[in-house]
């Protein structure tokens, strides 16, 4: 029985013989086909969308992934690959008439080569495990808040960001090579340990493609020397706009902090209840982290402190050591989970605006929130203009979930109008596919599809995601040849 407020896909039935063929590859114990057991895979972090796949398979290695995809390709059965299932856009939502490929068992760290600053892992390895594998001499910067659970394969699919993007960039700036199994079961190596191998930048095309171009079975990551020093401060302000002014001045002053994060009053209140940071009640908190050479960090920290005071910060806390820094970060990184303390349900969005438009967009969010009668807590990566408005609602109240979605959609429209994007790091998935058309025209979408068709002409990889409407590929075009009737002058091409 579908629960109220959830979007549940119809349950399908496996075609004859499919389960047997899959079991022959992975064995009965790594094939999940019972409806109860399949519930573990029915959604990702966007729990409002649910579907039960025909089956889930848990391959152990690349060869098994290839064998599985060959079977599915021959039978034209669609599939969805899944990492830790912590994504927030429904990118790993199963399809009811397809198979879910869970990559959790591909979790070997294959090589740690700090001489050449490379780490090679299987996709099921978590982000935090990569960070731990290279510390303390090296550093892997992308750090989504879910880093303890989220997998590198998922990070690659979504081009995951995190709090340190403003200085260090995103997953795509750190992936050098991928092993990819195409939908027909063929295995290709894209890029590699070295930079600029000959050929198209297919690594760049696959990172962030949300599982629609194939299954990544191996990832070569670049890591960098760990910064010499790290300084973290949190400043508290009466209003978000005062904090916003500090952000503008920091950037205008040529500083490039490792992180500039902001939380508003509601987000602070929730975090305080959840993790007890002992922060004062404030209209906004601004977290600034500086890293790099010792001498530079200290002078920049002094400049940031002075700017905070000049713009009315009533309290500034500087972390004295790593323990205190973790404490300051805990409030920020627990912000999503903390919403449970102040609201039954929440719906998180991921819009981006040009950084200078942050004050405008925050005002618009305030008025949209008032107009819809729903509270919105704001947590955001202020340095790169990436907002995470959390729309709070009661999933048991009829119609509230829909109102929350409508409100969130209006926030995204405002972001696009301000020259920004509907998603900075969470991906389009199913969640925002209907809004992709607000950023891109029909010719843009048709051009995206050309890429997808080059990799997966049968349209089996994660169907129904990213693109607003289903599209077919058609045959691989050959060289243009005039039709015999044209040549004979009998017909003209219009």
């Amino acid at each position: 029985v579908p629960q109220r407020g959830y979007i549940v896909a119809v349950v399908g039935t496996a075609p004859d013989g499919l389960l047997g063929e899959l079991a022959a590859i992975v064995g009965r114990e790594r094939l999940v086909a019972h409806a109860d057991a399949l519930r573990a895979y029915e959604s990702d972090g966007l729990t409002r969308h649910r579907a039960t796949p025909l089956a889930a398979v848990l391959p152990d290695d690349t060869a098994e992934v290839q064998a599985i995809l060959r079977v599915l390709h021959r039978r034209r059965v669609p599939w969805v690959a899944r990492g830790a299932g912590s994504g927030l856009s429904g990118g790993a939502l199963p399809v009811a008439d397809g198979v879910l490929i869970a990559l959790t068992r591909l979790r070997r760290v294959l090589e740690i080569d700090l001489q050449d600053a490379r780490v090679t892992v299987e996709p099921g390895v978590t982000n935090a495990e990569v960070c731990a594998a290279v510390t303390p001499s090296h550093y892997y910067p992308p750090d989504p808040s879910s880093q303890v659970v989220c997998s590198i394969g998922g990070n690659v699919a979504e081009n995951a960001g995190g709090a340190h993007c403003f200085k260090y960039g995103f997953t795509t700036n750190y992936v050098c090579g991928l092993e990819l199994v195409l939908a027909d079961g063929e295995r290709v190596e894209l890029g590699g340990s070295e930079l600029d191998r000959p050929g198209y930048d297919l690594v760049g095309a696959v990172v962030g493609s949300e599982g629609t171009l194939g299954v990544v079975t191996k990832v070569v990551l670049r890591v960098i020397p760990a910064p010499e020093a790290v300084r973290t401060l949190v400043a508290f302000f009466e209003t978000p706009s005062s904090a916003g002014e500090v952000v503008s001045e920091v950037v205008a002053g040529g500083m490039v902090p490792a992180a500039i994060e902001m939380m508003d009053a509601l987000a602070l209140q929730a975090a305080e209840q959840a993790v007890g940071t002992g922060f004062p009640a404030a209209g906004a908190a601004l977290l600034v982290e500086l890293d790099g050479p010792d001498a530079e960090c200290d002078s920049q920290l002094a400049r940031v402190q002075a700017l905070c005071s000049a713009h009315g910060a009533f309290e500034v806390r500087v972390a004295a050591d790593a323990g205190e820094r973790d404490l300051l970060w805990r409030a920020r990184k627990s912000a999503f989970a903390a919403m449970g303390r102040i609201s039954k349900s929440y719906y998180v969005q991921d819009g981006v605006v040009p950084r200078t438009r942050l004050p405008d967009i925050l005002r618009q969010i305030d008025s949209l929130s008032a107009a819809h009668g729903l509270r919105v807590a704001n947590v955001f990566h202020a340095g790169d203009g990436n907002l995470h408005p959390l729309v709070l609602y009661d999933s048991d109240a009829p119609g509230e979930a829909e109102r929350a979605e409508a409100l969130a959609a209006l926030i995204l429209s405002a972001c696009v109008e301000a020259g920004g994007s509907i998603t900075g790091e969470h991906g389009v998935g199913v969640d925002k596919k209907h809004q992709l058309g607000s950023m891109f025209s029909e010719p843009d979408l048709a051009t995206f599809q050309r890429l997808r068709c080059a990799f997966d002409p049968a349209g089996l990889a994660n169907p129904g995601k990213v693109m607003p409407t289903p599209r077919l590929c058609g045959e691989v075009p050959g060289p243009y040849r005039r039709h015999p009737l044209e040549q004979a002058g009998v017909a003209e091409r219009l």
Partner: protein
Amino acid sequence: VSGDPLTPPGETASPASVAEAAALLTERSASEIATRLRGAATKLDWGTFPDAGSEIAMAELDTRRLDSLIEHNAGDLTAVVGAGRSLATLQQSLAGAGQRLALDPPLGRSAAATIGGVCASGDSGPLRHRYGAPRDLVLGVRIVLTDGTVARAGSKVIKNVAGYDLAKLFCGSLGTLGLIAELSLRLHPLPSQTATALVDATDPAALARASTIFSKAPLEAEALDVAWRHGQGGLLARFAGEAAPTRAAAALELLAGEAALQGEVRDNDEPLWETQRNLQRAHEDGLSVRISGRPSRLLDALRVADALGATLVGRVALGLWWLTFDPGADHAASLEHLRVTLAPLKCVVQDAPPALRARLSPWGERDPGLVELERRLRVRFDPSSLCNPAVALGRALAAA
């Protein structure tokens, strides 16, 4: 049309708008005329292989009238620019606001290289050490396909994952998928000052050790380069900002254990880096080869450069090196020796005299499965093979 990719094509058109470019490509497609895309023509032969596309009637599209600075959002550190603007002109415009595009490839004859050409060729210079390649700095593109489709990908903001990242795909595609007409770019502040720690060496092993020390240290250098020719050379680490001279001096102290190395700090350091950039290119009828290397194999690369009488420059922490050969030597034999000695590292031909191209694969052996995927990609974007047909990317080469 002869096999020489630099043979002047039938007609050159210089559209003044994206719409004009689209109309031109549509019209030529209807007549089955292929188009060679060009900016300042400083790297026009890169990736070409004389047998590819030689039977097709060819005309040219010159991007240099698509040269406007469409937006410069100084507060957001972003810009949108026409592909035909010269990179030097773009940098001048941005410098007025104390900003730059942190991309410093060699600019070619008359410093004329366009931003579109630099991105289409994926070229970069010493700043790549800290700021990345074109693919890392291009936020979005507006492209025109041979059937006249005008499409955008990416965005104008520094963080965006909506839609496929075609900007990265087009960077380095050598014009084989379509025309890059406009680019949206991430900018960085211009540094208040720079200083370079310059280390002289005559012992390649000592130089390689010093490179490792610098690569692994948390220096946050702007650039970290090597230069080597005929048994001598050096290591260069460039620092930016108020503390640059102090940081350069501190870097030299890391090499105190290397008695054979002499170091000094240079404040007026731009000429050093101009030289580094220019040494990535061959002159006249010379050969230049880009090597996708690994930092730990620098010593091998230095030795093979000496053995072949070549000049080497490169990014030590990234493992990217350029070898240039003076005219006159047996370039085909040198390239073969290089590829064998450094295998499995890939050695990509950049500059080469036309007569040599017919005898060289631009990139050596490649995985056939990958080439097939590239072929499928190219044919999806340009079904009739009318876009830069002389460039061999996305094609299986006849045995070279």
